[in-house]
């Protein structure tokens, strides 16, 4: 009788472990999905910032700011002298 009880207990343990594992798989499935969404959000944010950096560092924009806001103009030939490297 004791032997059967032991087997029964062992079977119960295996079943319990299986159920626990299944619950964990589902729980982690939810978690992965949420984390993936978060990664996607940050990636998208990253791309948005890259676009902004690109727009703000574009030479067209820099030239426009230099000319219109800062009153700068292109150096004429002879105004910039490049010295030979020592």
């Amino acid at each position, binding site marked *: 009788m004791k032997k059967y009880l032991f087997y029964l207990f062992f079977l119960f343990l295996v079943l319990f472990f299986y159920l626990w594992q299944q619950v964990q798989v*589902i729980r982690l*499935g*939810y978690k*992965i*999905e949420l984390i*993936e969404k978060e990664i*996607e959000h940050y*990636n*998208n944010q990253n*791309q*948005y910032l*890259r*676009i902004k*950096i*690109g*727009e703000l*560092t*574009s*030479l*067209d924009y820099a*030239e426009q700011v230099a000319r219109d806001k800062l009153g700068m103009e292109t*150096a004429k*030939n*002879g105004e*910039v002298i*490049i*010295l*030979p*490297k020592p």
Partner: protein
Amino acid sequence: MNKFNKKRLLFCSLFSFFLSFAFTLRLVYLQLLKHKILAEQAKKQFLYFEQKEPLRGMILDRNGTIFVLSKEVDSCAAWPVIMKDRQSTAEQTAHLLNLQEQELKSKFFSSRLFLWVKRKLDSGEAEKIRNLNLSGVGLVKESKRFYPENDLLWHLLGRVNIDNQGISGIELAYDDLLRGKVIRESKERDGQGRKIRKSINTPTEDEKPKNIVLTIDKTIQHIAERELTKVYEQVQAKKAILLIQDVRTGEILAWVCRPIPGEDKWKHTPELLNNLVLSEVFEPGSTFKVFPAGFALEEKLTSPQEKFFCENGVFQIHGMKIRDHEKRGTLTFTEVLGYSSNIGMAKLGLRIDKEKIYPHLANFGFGRMSGLSLSGESPGIFLSEKYPQSRSALSLPILCFGQGIGVTAIQILNAYSAVANGGLLMEPQILKEIRNEKGEIIWQAQPLVIRRVLSEKTTQVLTEILEQAVEWGTGIKAKIKGYRIAGKTGTAQKFDFAKGEYSDTRHISSFCGYFPLPNPRWAILVIFDEPQTSNYWGGMLAAPVFARIVEEMVRYFQIPPGEIETKYAKIK
């Protein structure tokens, strides 16, 4: 136990037995007989597949500046069959997205399960749709291409269609690399509709989109575009091209074509997607004189000091009158090139062996594809090389001053680079590296020598002649103080097919040159097609553009002036 209790026990046992039996039968029926159908139904309810298109790869310049990248945006979609009030939904959606109400109503009253309302919305529009929370109208994520540098490098980068497939330029040529592979994942949904990930389907490195690094330098490209556009707009030319190449490696640093189709126009004018650098075939005119001249020097058929009588401006040969733009008497061969005399070059053509010169010119890449894997490239028109029977007595004399041959801009520039680098024809390169998502280099271009086309000694002599063409010849406006430059102007009359003769009013003005001498690093080609000005000469129109670009390039690359005083005295 009394009799009554026994009966009750028996009744309960029998009731339990029959109940269990009934349940068991039902279970057997459901599990064994209806198993397949029910399992399918359940699967449909909780299991679904999601297709995920990865964000298309980026295109960068040689220093890592982003030219193009993708970002997820919202698209507005509708499911008419589940709409509660189609009339009001159509009205509200049309109002929010600035669409035609009637058109939208007819779409919403159809029996379609799914339809796009407006794709790739801006963030404001998407927010409005999200806040309105209409039944049967929602937002779907899609990716969109963004160009932080706006129209910079328009033709080379190319464009994608609404489904993110490359339709021109680099976007088309390297579509497979940039797109990556669509990932299909199976997911489950619980009772509340929440997603549960069942399997993780990670794409392999090969399946992921790649980033493409071009040989283009953003700053040089910007300078080139600015300077070319200024003159292009000023003279209202039909088309314009500007190319800059590293003569030692074949790498292209700037690639400019004009006109640029506007964002709304390009959809309707596919011919504007053509990459003029590769597809536009033109008669080069005097810029081509360099190559027969190189052949003649190589074969010792002439020397820089040899004198040619230039017939005071008009020379009749085989029934055709060849004219120079200025009346000249006797000129040395250096002066023939410096003053760009057609008569001098035609006379040189009379002594050249045609069996030798055609293969020689073909070796420069004329009549051949460039090796760039971009679509729409033309090999040019070099019939007299391919079909000897098409040659006439005039073919060679007129070829020597750039008529009777059709070339592309890339062919001319690459051939000049070969002269500049000492005689080696390099494969033109536009792709520098391919990088993975992490930025690691997975492929890198190496300079490729196609063949030697001229001896080093001949190229030195040719460079000396071309330097003089800039010092005192037709290319004088390409000269800048403190730097030694070699180059050649070109002003070609366009052939009028309606009249069957060369036009007096339609020209192609060009200048091709390289600098800084004595060790040239870059070659630049400037072309204007049909400029609407009386100053249509290559030396007047294209050479100054060349000079302004050189001025800025020497500043950008910090190249100190070389021999300030030229060693060539100006000929009066």
